[in-house]
């Protein structure tokens, strides 16, 4: 299948979206940008390709004649999670290798000798609990390997260190170093290889093992053979777009990409607000999604996603915990500055004054969104429909405040759209531009490096 590829290299995460020739999404991938943009880009693309092939496989199985469809249904349903599990196991194996390499370098020897058996036990526990992340028994809070493996590692390490034989920090330090290497090296197995393992795993389970298992597997493999993807055009965008291995004509402004992506998701969109890690953009688009005006924050990062990151660090919380906590506020404390650098000081000062954490957080969210409102006003206001995108739209307090402010300052009837996949809007817009280029016979080929 011919696909247009869009890659959004953000300051925090890198996203890739594959669209078929009709502009329909066939695959999406996301990874932490970390320090190596090129790898992040390759990983996100690989993930999107894998997701695309899985979704093409699902489509193909869906289209099988009635009887064959019934026979493959159970396998088809279990396959995506099984596939993800296999990928996770591969990365876990990489992690294990890195962890052993790291522990091998620990000095003095006495410490290393204490750490080695502890690490063995941690790794053993992690493999034992891995399956629970993919069998539906535990809700996954993230799909990033770092987050999943990190949580599993820390839980295991805490248990292992409880006896006091080795210090927890030393084990945790090993993880931080090792995971970085896993993230910055791409050692993916070929799709078919992983698929066969996933099929084998599913069919070995009683519930799915069919009387003619072999026949079912053949059907699935035959369908998978038709899932090859031909990436016909690429467009890159985002904060790090200049570092992509793309020729200049394959790089587009994120303002145009976000505007177009949001418009594709909600064709009634006229105003877009995107709050990312490094910047905030207020964008106006016309009926076909073309940007007519925009404003973005200046070099000051006040009020961007990074701001919430600092606040979360300061409170020792995860980013995703801020919104729910702020929602428990009794009142909204008035905060004037949204300076990112001084966010921590502001917070400590208010805590010292005896103000409640929840109330301060509510105030910080409001201050941040007021800044966004000012950008929106400068870009030409909020017009129906209004689409909110970027990492911050996952924060329920931020969206609540935004709803209130829009109703207050503009028309209360304004429709506010937030897409569950809103983080992919920039990459989606980029992929639409890639398709344009393909149809027009433009564009160039990226100089991918092999990993």
């Amino acid at each position, binding site marked *: 299948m011919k696909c247009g590829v869009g890659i959004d290299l953000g300051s925090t995460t890198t996203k890739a979206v594959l669209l078929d020739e009709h502009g329909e999404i066939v695959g999406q991938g996301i990874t932490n940008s970390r320090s190596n943009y090129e790898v992040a880009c390759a990983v996100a693309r690989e993930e999107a390709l894998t997701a695309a092939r899985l979704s093409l496989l699902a489509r193909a199985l869906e289209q099988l004649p009635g009887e064959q469809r019934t026979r493959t249904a159970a396998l088809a349903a279990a396959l995506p999670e099984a596939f993800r599990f296999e990928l996770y196991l591969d990365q876990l194996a990489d992690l294990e290798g890195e962890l052993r390499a790291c522990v091998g370098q620990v000095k003095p020897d006495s410490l290393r000798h204490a750490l080695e058996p502890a690490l063995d036990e941690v790794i053993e526990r992690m493999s034992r609990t891995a399956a629970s992340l993919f069998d539906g028994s535990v809700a996954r809070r993230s799909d990033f390997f770092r987050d999943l493996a990190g949580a599993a590692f820390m839980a295991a390490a805490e248990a292992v260190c409880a006896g006091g034989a080795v210090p927890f920090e030393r084990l945790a330090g090993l993880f931080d170093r090792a995971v970085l290497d896993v993230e910055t090296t791409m050692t993916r197995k070929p799709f078919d290889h992983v698929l066969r393992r996933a099929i084998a795993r599913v069919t070995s389970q009683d519930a799915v093992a069919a009387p003619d298992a072999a026949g079912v597997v053949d059907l699935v493999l035959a369908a998978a053979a038709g899932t090859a993807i031909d990436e016909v055009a690429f467009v890159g965008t985002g904060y790090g777009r200049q570092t992509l291995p793309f020729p200049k004509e394959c790089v587009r402004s994120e303002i145009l990409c976000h505007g*177009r992506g949001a418009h594709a998701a909600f064709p009634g969109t006229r105003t877009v607000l995107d709050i990312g890690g490094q910047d905030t953009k207020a964008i106006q688009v016309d009926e076909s999604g073309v940007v007519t005006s925009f*404003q973005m924050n200046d070099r000051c990062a006040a009020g961007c996603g990074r701001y919430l990151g600092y606040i979360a660090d300061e409170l020792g919380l995860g980013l995703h915990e801020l919104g729910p906590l702020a929602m428990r506020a009794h009142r909204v404390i008035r905060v004037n500055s949204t300076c990112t650098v001084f966010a921590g000081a502001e917070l400590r000062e208010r805590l010292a004054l005896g103000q409640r954490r929840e109330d301060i957080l509510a105030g910080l969210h409001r201050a941040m969104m007021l800044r966004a409102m000012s950008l929106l006003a*400068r870009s030409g206001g909020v017009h129906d429909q209004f689409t909110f995108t970027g990492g911050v739209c996952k924060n329920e307090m931020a969206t609540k405040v935004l709803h209130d402010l829009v109703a207050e300052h503009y028309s209360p009837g304004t429709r506010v759209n937030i897409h569950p996949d809103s983080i992919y809007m920039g990459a989606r817009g980029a992929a639409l531009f890639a398709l344009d280029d393909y149809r027009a016979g433009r564009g160039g080929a990226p100089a991918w490096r092999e990993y």
Partner: protein
Amino acid sequence: MSTPAAAAAGAKDESQIRQKRMIGEHFERLARARHDGRKVVYTFVPGNLTELIASFGMLSVLPEINALQSGMRGRSAAYIAEAEKSGHSEDVCTYVKCDIGMLRSGNIGPTGTKLPEPDLLLLSYTGCFTFMKWFELLREQYRCPVAMLHVPYQPDGVITPSMRAYVVDQLKNEVIPAMERVSGRRLDLDELTAQLARSAAAEDDLVAVWESARHRPSPIDGYFGGVYYVGPIFSAFRGSEEAVAYYRELRREVDARMAAGKGPATPDGTLAEERYRLVVEGPPNWTSFNDFWRMFTREGAVAVASTYTRVGGLYDTGFRHDASHPFETLADYCLGCYTNLGLPARVALLERYIREYHADGFIINSVKSCNSFSAGQLLMLRELERRTGRPGGFIESDLVDPRYFGKANIENRIQSYLQMVDARRHGGYA
């Protein structure tokens, strides 16, 4: 504005070499001023009375130009820090802080020679309140006389007879007597009118250079290149023989470029392809001047007209120095400064540029230092978009404070803007 030595690289035109020489000679004259017994007047670019100063045989120093040159030579950060150390807040115009910092660091001018102290501070344009405060600070430092010309604002873009009379009265009764006292000479009307006649000749040629940008491709860049072209006429040279010769030569070069179908000279040679024609409002950033310029040239964007190059005279709206009415013409010049116009007049001027120079759109560079320029720019943007149907872009930086030039941010906005112009030019997406 003006003429940082050899900044516009590429092949040097004769006019550029000439300009560089003129500047060098001027700073040498300044360095010898005490020795030669010549008096020195510090004054500002908008509404500068260069012909009058020269007619008394006095030399001009333009602190704004020194500040912008410090910016271009990478000195401004240290000067600003110096000024902030002595108590000037972050919000003060950075031209002022840069100048104060330079003064406190030995007052060495852009060509490396020491600047003489002023014998007179001549404030001939009061449209910017900062100017008054600036000279107040310099007066503290130098304890020299100040002559001030109060210039009424043009809210409707019209100079009324009473405004003119009011300024002429001040010229005759305050400014000229002050200059006579400082120079020890009487006003020489013949010399003044000769200067004014030469100004008009240079202005004619400058307007022809500006208007060459109506041609496709434009042979000049009317903003980045434009600030070099206005150097002599903005500063100490208007009314001189040298200025007349410079503009004659410049015009000849530009005509030749146009005849050859060549694009503008840029830091990286002649621009190969003109992809976007833009009008620019607001002063440039000086600390990253060439980087800023390249953000345009790399995309094939040419500034066909700009308002910043008009702060030293709106010659293309018909004004010329008129030797037959010396006082009235000086009054009109001071009153006609671009930032002395109300917003409707500024919008009308930009609209005219967008239409007459066949621009694809316009960009506003809003600098945090300059309220005269920046106040109301977003209103102007919306109004211009409404009137012309052409898109406006908005970027933010500063004159000479490098801390306010966010390279990635500005480049991002410019690229986004140009891609938006493209998308709209092609009537939307496929």
